[in-house]
């Protein structure tokens, strides 16, 4: 039973077709990645699923169609996005940022428990909780963006380029965390240019090129694929 099922998703900006009808699935409890070069349409696909841009096609989440639903309704159904470029609320504190993550929720007890959980996952955020989001380092901001999305207690977490613009050491740290979140049982869809890292943590992968999916399969298998190796792993 797949948690997310995408059929014929198309996203266009004016005359430019960023996503040209893609099909993919994310099973419950899976970590799936969507890899591809810059401009392949990966982020547009995520935005289309979340209702942040106008998209055509059929997106099923759980057992319901998300067709024509506004973003807030999609979030309320249990999908959370860590946006590209992190989207930290710069002039709110770390704690306030996390609080915003739980905007859709009313269960105070649950929110408190999840706050403790994300602070345990990211002790640095706990240290910095009274600090403004905008004053954090890039890596800390990425942690905050992930933690904030987790505060919605999502059934499916979408991550858009979590390694972007970070020092290699920080990227490794972020990926450790992503693996830890997946181990907790959260379903993840990861969009990433850094194919090497993404394939390492994922179970399955889709390769996107100029708005279409060209390859898909188990991540370990794709990591050995000659085509992928030459195009995305620099070999």
């Amino acid at each position, binding site marked *: 039973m797949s948690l997310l099922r995408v059929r014929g998703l198309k996203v266009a900006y004016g005359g430019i077709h960023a996503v040209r009808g893609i099909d993919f699935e994310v099973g419950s409890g899976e970590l799936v990645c969507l890899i591809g070069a810059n401009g392949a349409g990966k982020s547009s696909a995520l935005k289309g699923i979340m209702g942040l841009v106008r998209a055509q096609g059929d997106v099923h989440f759980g057992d319901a169609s998300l067709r024509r639903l*506004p973003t807030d309704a999609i979030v309320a159904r249990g999908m959370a996005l860590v946006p590209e470029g992190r989207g930290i*609320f710069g002039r709110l504190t770390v704690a306030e940022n996390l609080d*915003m993550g739980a905007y859709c929720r009313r269960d105070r007890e649950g929110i408190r428990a999840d706050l403790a959980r994300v602070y345990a996952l990211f002790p640095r955020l706990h240290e910095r909780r009274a*600090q403004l989001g905008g004053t954090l380092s890039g890596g800390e901001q990425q942690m905050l963006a992930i933690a*904030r999305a987790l505060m919605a207690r999502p059934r499916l977490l979408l991550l858009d380029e979590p390694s972007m613009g970070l020092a290699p050491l920080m990227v490794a740290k972020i990926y450790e965390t992503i693996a830890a979140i997946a181990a907790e049982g959260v379903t993840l869809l990861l969009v990433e240019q850094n194919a090497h890292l993404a394939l390492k943590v994922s179970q399955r992968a889709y390769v996107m090129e100029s708005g279409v999916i060209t390859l898909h399969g188990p991540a370990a298998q794709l990591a050995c694929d000659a085509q992928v190796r030459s195009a995305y792993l620099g070999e």
Partner: protein
Amino acid sequence: MRTALDALRARPRLAFALLAALLVALPFLVGAGLGNSWVRVLDFVLLYILLALGLNIVVGYAGLLDLGFIAFYAIGAYVYALLASPHFGLHLPFWAILPISMALAGLFGVLLGTPTLRLRGDYLAIVTLGFHEIIRIFLNNLNAPYNLTNGPQGINLIDPITIGGHALSRPLELFGVTVPSTYLYYYVFLAFTLLVMAVAIRLQDSRLGRAWAALREDEVAAAAMGINTRNVKLLAFAMGATFAGLAGGLFASFQGFVSPESFSLWESFLVLCMIVLGGMGHIPGVILGAALLTVIPEALRYLGDLQRATLGHVVLDPADLRMLLFGIALVIMMIYRPAGLIPSRQRKRELTARDGVAEQEQASLYDAKA
């Protein structure tokens, strides 16, 4: 001074009582010390505080740059004028009109908000500027074919606010004391200002207030948090406009006369300057800004008298000087106190916390290594 303040802080109830007594006695103190014309200035201070609190919701809370805010003030004022003057022969009581003023201004807020949902920053500013001019030009020209607004002549003989059978335009005899009209309006305006202030404070800490803050910081991320950005934006426009509509209604009854001239673009800029100067998004700052920018231009009028007394004639017209000083003051402010005279908690933190960033960047790299 400091110890006196600390002593008051330790006794909030006493501080509250003293503040209340001061607010009640203020028109009498001002009237006795500076003359009755200054009580009128005091009334305008309260009207501008109402306006600034309204604009603060749009610009300070939600981060939507609105340069046409006075259009809503004009709508509120004209609604009052049309429903309580000989123009249409209608004389509804103020408590019936003010809600209509507020509702109509709020509706126009939504009308302005709807087509501008996708605009931000400069583009939004330009559209709101245009909206202001559209309203002003309509008011100026809607005297034909059907005379709705009486054109540039404006509408006069607007009914004063009447409470308990007493029209506030006439002085009130109370226990042998004569309370002039401007004093009476002061108390009415004060009541409304306190009410609006309470609403503004509650809004800031509400779920909606948090949604506005997120919207101001990052619209895409706000949407990803599950905030209905469309509704939240429209609510900001509508609520800000509602406050302006209230202020407009009070203004019309107080002046007894409205014309398009009272609602120039300059007024919109002035209110924006008030919140920028005082501290955007922060209620005490906004109040201080409104008070200063209303009182200072009035005080500058004395410069004319001063020149006449010392030089025999007026060399520099205080009205011109006013603009000059205004400009200089704003430039100085932007250089030395960019977050305003009383910045909000968030802005203050932002300005003091910045130094630590490089250090943390280092620290977090070490952590990653470990």
